[in-house]
């Protein structure tokens, strides 16, 4: 199993499972942490609440974020990730149903790395996920992360 963790922030169980299924089809064997709402996502990332025991030096390699989330809205999650020094460099790909211009623009303004609208046709979705995984986990050079002055690998 690849050590690079993917955080999937998505509340719809069907979509989560379809996404995981797509990952499987795309032969992405990385650990996928699924957060079902924005709060859980933030707790996980910042090592709070249920995840207070988590070693936050384990920085995820990629965050897949849906915009429509319970508790904390996707855009707020995005803002908080980007506001934090440690998490701001994590590549974030918006994976959502929406293609509202307004949303896309705002996301880019905050500083996302990619915006993907989930296709309805599942075969197409698998294609997208395959490309996505390959690109961000294999092709793309990940950013360096420091914790208390130390570079984390």
């Amino acid at each position, binding site marked *: 199993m690849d050590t690079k963790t993917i955080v999937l922030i998505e509340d719809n169980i069907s979509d989560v499972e379809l996404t995981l299924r797509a990952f499987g089809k795309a032969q992405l064997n990385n650990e996928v942490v699924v957060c079902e709402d924005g709060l859980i996502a933030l707790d996980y990332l910042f090592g709070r609440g249920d995840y207070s025991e988590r070693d936050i030096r384990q920085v995820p390699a990629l965050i897949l974020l849906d915009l429509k989330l319970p508790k904390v809205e996707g855009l707020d999650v995005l803002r908080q990730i980007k506001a934090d020094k440690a998490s701001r460099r994590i590549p974030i790909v918006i994976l959502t149903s929406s293609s*509202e211009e307004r949303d896309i623009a705002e996301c880019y303004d905050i500083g996302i790395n990619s915006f993907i609208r989930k296709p309805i046709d599942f075969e197409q*979705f698998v294609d997208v996920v395959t490309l996505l995984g390959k690109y961000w986990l294999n092709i793309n050079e990940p950013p360096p992360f420091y914790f208390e002055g130390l570079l984390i690998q």
Partner: protein
Amino acid sequence: MKRDSKIVVKQFTIILLVAFMIILVIVVSGIMMGMSSKILQLKSIIQIGLAFLFLIIGIFALYKLGQNIFPHNKFPRDWNTTFDAVSDVLWLLDKDFKIIRTNQAAEKLLGMRAKDLIGKHCWEIVHQTSIQDVECPVFEVNRTGKSASSEIQAGEKWFYIIINPIYSHNKELMGYVHTIRDITVKKNIEVAIVKIQKQNALLADLLQNSSQPFAIIYRGGRISMCNAAFRNLLGYTEEEFTEIANINSITPLEWAEYENDNINKLLQTGEPVRFEKEYIRKDGSRIPVEIFLHMSKDLSGELQFFYSFATEITERKRAERTLKESEERFRKVADSAYEWIWEIDETGLYTYCSAAVEMILGYKSDELVGKKHYYDLFLSENREDLKAEVTKIFSKKNAFHGLINKNLHKNGTIVTLKTSGSPVVSTTGNLIGYIGTAQDITLQQQSEEDLRRLSERLLMATKSAKIGIWELDYATQTTIWDDTIYQLFDIIPGQEVDYNEVWRKRVHPKDLIEYKKLEQEAIVGDGKIDSLFRVILDNGSIRYIKVDAILQRDSTGKPSGLVGTNYDITTIKLAEEAIRGLNEKLEQKVKERTESLEKANKELEAFSHSISHDLRGPLRTIDGWSLALMEDYYDLIDDRGKVFLGRIRNGAQQMGLIMDAILKLFRIVRAELLISKVNLSEISQKIISDLKLQNPDRKVKVIIQPDLIIKGDAVLLNLVMVNLLNNAWKFTSTKPEAIIEFGKKEIDNQTVFFVNDNGVGFEMKYASKLFGAFQRMHSDKEFSGTGIGLATVKSIINCHGGKIWAETKVNQGATFYFTLKEI
């Protein structure tokens, strides 16, 4: 001469007597001689005796006669003559000063004959005293024994008396020669001379001390003498002036010639000349003087000197200059005045016309002055009447004002003048002429007439329009109302009203306060009031009155009152209020509608958001899990089941496409247009190229008219062309020889674009449904589509202010027409 003639007569008489006696002697001698022959002895003695007798008688006669002529027969005759010829009185006096002989002059001088004089003492005659006068030189002669003289006044006469003693050979006093010379003339002359000398001295003194500058000047200019006043006039002391003392050095060069002319005139006529000139004072300044120059001639008539009285005329000059200036000013004023200022003499002949006359009557001033009479320009038809009227005024020497008279302009037009004049009267009360002004009132009269008509019309207009006119005078707090105003305030016209009270009583209190505020604003502001107020009538009804007023100011700019109009606008006001009510209702409705529309829009937006978000998820679930079922349970599902699953997925995907199309349509509706130049021909070429690339097997003939350029939103118009051309492409897919054409044509003077194809077409009865959303003419089986495309096209065309329509027949192709508003 008289005296001489007398002497001659007397001498002639003596000569005759002597001649007679001689003849007589000769005759007597002759007779005696004749008788001598007879009685010679005796007779001759008698005869001789007789002759002597006669001779003696003759001599005596002669003596007697001679005594009359030569009183003292002691003097020889020629001495006697001389004696008598002396003009002085000559007396021979004896030793006792008694006159023994006198000459003719005595009679003449003293009026006394010799017989009255002889034997009298000289003083009895001269002094007319019986004793010797103290002044008499007799005393001195007696005392000294020598001649003595004295001057004696006797009455008005003066005598010079000389008494010379006469001595004989042996120095014995024989008598005296007493001479009396009449020296009255000499004496008088002497007195006169003294008097003259005194007078001269006085005159000289007067001249010297007189304040009248005076100088005696020789020919050539040297000043022989001048008085202090003259020197003072020139600012010199006596010493200083002695060095100059020449008229030429105190006369400015430019005056020299003029002065010479005057001197020549004096020399030619001998009459004193008076002229003005200037002198140069010591300090170099000029002093204007009037010279009164005389000449003094000697007895031969030769010029001795000039004497000159110089009078300073600075003041006079100044006065003259002031007068001249003031006259010039007057002329200037007169000439610059719009009014014609004129002067005529007593005959009515113009003596002065100001320049304005040319403007008014077309004549130049010098065309009238001295040439025309005041009546020459009167219009001929009433000239005599006017002339008579004016003559009457002139005869009374009256002033006249505002005499209206029509005159003929030089160019033939009629000019109405308003003339006023005052008589000019000499000091003796005689009329010298008239001076006055004439004003061109032709236009004024015209305007007055116009104004009268205008005011009549205005009156009619205001009456018929029921516009009331009023005036308010601040000083008196009185108003002038016309009838309409009374009616507006519901007061019987003509009644005397207290304006303030009427206002208080009739005008709505709120409006009254507002109006007073506006009035104050007008006073400090633009002087205008434009407002309205409510008049409350007795029956309680309200009348709306529009007021327009203009502030009046007096000559000092102080507000003096108001002039304004009132107009009943109750009807208008009520109508306005009704309209306002309606408008308010309408606005409320619009607002409500807008709000609901906005709400609907928002809902629509939410709906579109919802479609894109919430509906896609389930579709993906349907599609995704259908596929998962198919994959994971492939063996368990029979072929029929697999077909069903395929249809489920197909439906889900189709629905996704429809939702995308709907979203696109919504976006177009909401979007703002970005206007630029769009080349529809190029866009079409590109679309066709893409289509050909996607369907390389298709054989389609495409005709695109080049350079169809319009203004519009490039993205949206691209969408239009994509939809239309895609449709054309799609619906010709069954045709082996497909033709697609894009172009422009004029229909009913309107530019219309069209996309034409020879495809399957459709039935025209469905044409109206063509552009509705989700309207499809064909089954999915025949031609796939969302049913949104043409709805989108219509939206875009509408957004561009255009129209879209279609013409078609089944199997005969379709033509889509659209217009675009020219932006």
